[in-house]
């Protein structure tokens, strides 16, 4: 006897529906767009405790240091807050960890003991371009043009990360959080992410394996964290400015205001 959603179904129908579940789980990953500032869960690869095996689990994007005790403190930490005296304290979203500083700040312990990989099939960055307004003068605020960046030969690739378990003392639950490591932008990414000139640390297979499985020295950790994927391995697609709201977010668009990219 087989039941699906509370209804009695034939075995054949049950098998079809269970197969469909697998299909849509895969589709979910294909179409999902994760935005860092939503602090949502994201599928991440890490070493399974007590074994050399890799496991894929959901973690919250936005590294949380252990000293934070509640969600209210997390909110203030990430978004900033005004104290009783009216002084503003900046927030620290901790979505990205700078590779060069990885061993000198709150990420050190995680870099030594809790490294992870973030599987991706593409990420987004915005090119800032000074444009001429209707008056014929350059506008003060640059316009932002989004790009989808993918790896030419790898539909899925791995970005280096570090993770940190955080305990919510109010609910007594443990939340795994992570930060994505960024390195100096290559020549392609310098043109696109021209406001910060950074890009994710995208690791080839051997380095991804070492990042997750090997007992690395400080220098080896920094060497891998600073790894810079080559421009020639990447492809960048300009997208509509409102791509996140579109039915097909990855529809390519040509902007006349944007200089042509040089893959050097």
């Amino acid at each position, binding site marked *: 006897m087989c039941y*699906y*959603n*509370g*209804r*009695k*179904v*034939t075995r054949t*129908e049950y098998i*079809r*529906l269970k*197969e*469909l*579940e697998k*299909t*849509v789980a895969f*589709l*979910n990953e294909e*179409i999902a*767009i994760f*935005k860092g500032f*939503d602090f949502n869960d994201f599928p991440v690869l890490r070493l399974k405790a007590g074994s050399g095996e890799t496991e894929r689990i959901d973690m919250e994007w936005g590294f949380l240091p252990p000293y934070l005790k509640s969600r209210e403190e997390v909110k203030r930490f990430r978004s900033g807050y005004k104290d009783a005296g009216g002084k503003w304290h900046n927030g620290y979203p901790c979505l990205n960890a700078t590779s060069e500083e990885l061993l000198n700040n709150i990420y050190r312990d995680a870099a030594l003991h809790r490294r992870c990989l973030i599987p991706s099939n593409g990420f987004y960055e915005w090119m800032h371009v000074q444009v001429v307004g209707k008056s014929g003068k350059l506008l003060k605020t640059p316009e932002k043009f989004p790009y989808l960046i993918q790896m030419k030969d790898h539909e899925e690739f791995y970005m280096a990360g570090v993770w940190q378990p955080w305990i919510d003392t109010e609910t007594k639950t443990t939340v795994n959080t992570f930060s994505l490591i960024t390195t100096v932008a290559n020549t392609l990414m310098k043109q696109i992410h021209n406001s910060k000139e950074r890009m994710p640390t995208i690791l080839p297979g051997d380095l991804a394996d070492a990042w997750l499985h090997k007992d690395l020295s400080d220098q080896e950790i920094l060497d891998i964290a600073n790894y810079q994927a080559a421009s020639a391995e990447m492809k960048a697609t300009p997208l509509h400015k409102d791509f996140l709201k579109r*039915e097909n977010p990855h529809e390519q668009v040509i902007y006349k205001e944007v200089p042509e990219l040089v893959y050097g």
Partner: protein
Amino acid sequence: MESNTLNEVFALTFKEGAYSCKRLEKNGSIFYVVKFNSSYLYLTKAFAQDGGAFWTSVPADTKLNHLVFELGKQIDNYNKNK
């Protein structure tokens, strides 16, 4: 009779909101994906052992039955009126 047109997109409404719905087919199963802001709901028409058809979310979630029933009805109407 349902059309075999795949990947067509049409609108569904629920509680005064309009949501896009895409018809898909994989491995012989026809199903629909409804986009709710940043999340997706998958629906398919299933057949009970007594032969009656019913709409279900995939994966099954009885908490969504009301929503699934409403959206399924609209998909049936859409297919009928094509």
